[in-house]
């Protein structure tokens, strides 16, 4: 039997499942509020690239400050800005492999003079830029939490943590 026979209501044989509809209407009301929050959260930066999504890590002691998005989306461009506190003739920036291996590097601006790949880090050597800053344009290809360190010549490691959405 393909299901029970629907009851007859005022001559109509129909299963309105009114209890279910009442319960579901409550779920819908709550869900609508949550759905309405999604665009607001996106503007705020909960999904990357919003008003409050950027975070700056590092200090004078670290010799470098790193600005990046707390959240990113897989295959969508995200930016990692490295600012040197003590611009020298050349500056080495080491990004730990566990972090960098989770991204495709689409561009580094200004172009580094040299890139060396070590066992645990990739070292980018920059000429003294007037602004003392380098920007990495990255595309995450791994979902989840990406963690690692950015270290400039003579500084302490700066911890970077980004959550990547699918």
């Amino acid at each position, binding site marked *: 039997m393909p299901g029970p026979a629907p009851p007859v209501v*005022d001559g109509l044989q129909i299963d*309105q*499942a009114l209890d279910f509809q009442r319960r579901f209407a409550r779920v819908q009301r709550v869900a609508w509020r949550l759905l309405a929050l999604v665009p607001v959260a996106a503007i705020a930066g909960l999904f990357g690239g919003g008003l409050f999504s950027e975070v700056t890590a590092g200090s004078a002691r670290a010799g470098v400050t790193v600005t990046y998005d707390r959240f990113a989306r897989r295959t969508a461009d995200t930016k990692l800005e490295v600012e040197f506190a003590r611009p020298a003739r050349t500056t080495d920036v080491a990004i730990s492999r566990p972090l960098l291996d989770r991204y495709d590097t689409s561009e580094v601006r200004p172009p580094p003079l040299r890139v060396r790949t070590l066992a645990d880090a990739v070292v980018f050597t920059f000429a003294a830029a007037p602004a003392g800053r380098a920007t990495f344009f990255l595309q995450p290809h791994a979902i989840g939490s990406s963690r690692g360190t950015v270290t400039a010549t003579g500084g302490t490691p700066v911890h970077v943590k980004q959550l990547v959405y699918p």
Partner: protein
Amino acid sequence: MEPVLRAIGCYLLLLFVVRLSGKRGLAQITIFDLILLLLISQTVGQALIGDDSSLTTAAIITITLVVINRANDTVAHRWADMSHVLEDAPLILIENGVVHEDRMAKMKIRLDDILENGRLDEGVERLDQIKHAILERSGDISIIAKEHDDDGQGPAGG
């Protein structure tokens, strides 16, 4: 594996959003619904395929979607509760000539909508000629006119 996960993800996303958006959903397509439909299909289509436009991926995604849809139908057929969750239930808006205003307000349906359906389906001229109006699971409003009931026949064609 990735195309399968993408297909499942997109299917669940659409199921979730469309079911929660209310029963009128996209069944009765106005011009704005059509625009919405085009935009959604364009947006989700990109996420579904990603940057892999190979025939193999297209085949995997198509087959996955058809299989999920079949599973969905099977679940809805086997369990009445799941059928309501996945496909909703009909709701009587006009019962023996009595208008359930609270239900219409909840479903964002106006008397105009019911009368329009009455004109289209049954050639009904006025509200008092409508015996029953039912908001179906598809979002369509079916109308049963008083005349048809009085002579004991089903609705005549045309």
